[in-house]
């Protein structure tokens, strides 16, 4: 089933597959099956990063998109069967209130809160998950301390956009997978890495970069936008093309890499915009500091409402990001 110009079926599968940080088994399996026939070699490292290699003689390029998603971990089950929890990655109590979460065994829970006099006092430790079972005894047959859940929300394809949970960063995984599939013979040696534990501190990318020791690192991730009412000023908007990162909290992109990606975009008439992100970081932050330093950049997909159960991206930006990534990887004689 192909809707419009992207493989929406694959995208939906990626978005709906379970994978909070540290629990990427299921999403790793889905991606591995999807890319198996397109890679020359596939391996999984000690932390769980999935590494697909496309052999070539030129530069060694690491493409990183993270498989993990934000979520919650259970810290306690009380006598009445209510679960207390903590965040995995950046989870806002306000975004979470009233939402549903889904556990690995597909149990669904609702997030509620203690009575508060002032909603401003809302914190995760004043909140709980209700899985609709009457007692601790019943609950612990299914869910225990240490179990994790991701947010639960449907996949929506509407007009020219996708609305879903976990576009951060399954949309990056989607871009990398599509690039891998469409990439014909490449002059470069490409390491497509689907990283773990990005949301808790760029952890998978750190060890993967050490292992691969690439000449160039490119992360594919979502970025925030400044195109909603009274948003923080930021010159990135949906539908304006792939975003080429200039800096964020984790990296100042090497000007050489920024110029390289820009040149490819201009030469191939791919719409692009520059991204300067005040908050947040991505896998390139870890990659560029690996070993004796690795020139690194980022192709970002503009995304509204990041880390909410209703993230939004435009299809056109996704398509442009795939095109841009392919053209960068196909470039001969990269001078870094």
């Amino acid at each position, binding site marked *: 089933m192909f809707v419009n110009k992207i493989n929406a079926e694959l995208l939906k599968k990626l978005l709906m597959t379970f994978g909070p*940080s*540290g*629990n990427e088994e299921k999403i790793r399996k889905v991606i591995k099956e999807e890319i198996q026939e397109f890679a020359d070699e596939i391996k999984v*490292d000690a932390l769980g990063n999935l590494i697909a290699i496309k052999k070539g003689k030129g530069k060694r390029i690491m493409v990183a998109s993270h498989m993990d998603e934000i979520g919650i971990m259970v810290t306690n089950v009380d006598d009445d069967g209510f679960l207390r929890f*903590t965040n995995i990655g950046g989870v806002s109590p306000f975004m979470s209130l009233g939402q549903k979460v889904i556990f690995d065994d597909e149990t669904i829970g609702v997030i509620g809160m203690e009575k508060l006099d002032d909603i401003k006092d809302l914190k995760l430790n004043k909140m709980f998950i209700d899985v609709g079972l009457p007692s601790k005894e019943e609950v612990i047959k299914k869910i225990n*301390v240490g179990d994790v859940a991701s947010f639960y929300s449907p996949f929506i394809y509407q007009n020219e956009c996708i609305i879903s949970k976990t576009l951060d960063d399954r949309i990056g995984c989607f871009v990398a997978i599509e690039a891998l599939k469409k990439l014909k013979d490449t002059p470069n040696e490409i390491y497509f890495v689907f990283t773990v534990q990005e949301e808790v501190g760029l952890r*998978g990318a750190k*060890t993967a970069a*050490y292992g691969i020791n690439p000449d160039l690192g490119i992360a594919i991730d979502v970025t925030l936008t400044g195109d909603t009412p009274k948003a923080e000023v930021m010159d990135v908007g949906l539908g304006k093309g792939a975003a080429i990162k200039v800096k964020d909290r984790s990296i100042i992109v090497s000007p050489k890499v920024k110029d390289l990606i820009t040149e490819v975009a201009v030469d191939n008439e791919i719409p692009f915009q520059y991204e300067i992100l005040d908050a947040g970081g991505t896998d390139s932050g870890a990659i560029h500091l690996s070993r004796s330093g690795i020139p690194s950049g980022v192709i970002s997909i503009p995304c509204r409402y990041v880390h909410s159960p209703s993230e939004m991206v435009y299809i056109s930006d996704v398509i442009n990001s795939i095109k841009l990534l392919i053209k960068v990887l196909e470039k001969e004689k990269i001078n870094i």
Partner: protein
Amino acid sequence: MLLKRLTMANGVSGNEDEVRNIIIEEIREHVDEIKTDRLGNVIAIKKGKEGFPRVMLAAHMDEVGMIVRSIDDGGFIRFSLVGGIDERILVSKQVLIGKDRIHGVIGAKAIHLQDKNERNTPLKIKQLYIDIGAKSKEEAEKLVKKGDYVAFDSEFIEFGGNLIKAKALDDRAGCGVLIDLLKEEYDVEIYGVFTVQEEIGLRGAKVAAYNADPSFAIVFEGTLCSDISEVPEHSHITKLGKGPALSLMDSYTIFSKKLNQCIHETAVENNIKIQYRQPSPGGNDAGEIHLTKEGIPCAALSVPCRYIHSPSSIMSLEDFEGCKKTAKLFLKGIKKGEYVCE
């Protein structure tokens, strides 16, 4: 008792000599090789059999404490904190300064002289000083120098139902466990590392793990235990007397599910009490170890300690023994080819 010697030794981060000496003396005869690296980590190696993995076992030697900043005109010592200490616990505590263990008391303005406002605000470090009984700056300078380390002065006491009270159980408890483990024989190769400078940022572990490059690592800790009446159960973190605690997740690490499962099973099968440490802020040496080189799966097995980072921590000797026993059985149960990296 070894644990008594370990906790009575002073080893504020960056000044782990006393602890290091006790440990080396204690383990020397039981290991194949022993060395101290450039940062001061003690690395003890026990050779393994072919086909078995190399395991890094880590416990940190350092403890939280203070360091002398200056001596004022009245001969009172001004100081800074080393590691995370709640300033509110400092007043009136006894301390030992420097190698010569100069006695001091942390003093502050008497309650009689404080105005209402002052009584309602906790005293800040700047308002505190250490009184070593010197009459003048000159006299104080004969005993204490800038940069001298300051440790809490606290007796090791056995009390209650198999409990002990001591300072520095975080992480001399872990050191005690690791020393004991090194006295046994295994098929796996053991890299026993007693790390420095954990309390100020997991610094020793970072370089030690780079050097050891093991198949996996287990960190032994004294960890948070807040199982007291007024704290809701979902914030207890661990419970005293319920066995050693396996970490699930903290600020720096998501721990290996596979290792956790195997260690937990080992305890249950052998009727040893074991609990999970509720995910909470904080961290331990695993934070650096698991991100070393191409990644190293980690577990952390901890002895629950009430009031850590204070002069008077409390732990259960039963939990301490349970920690040793669980780790010992787990390590001895590892079969050929298991956990070995490709």
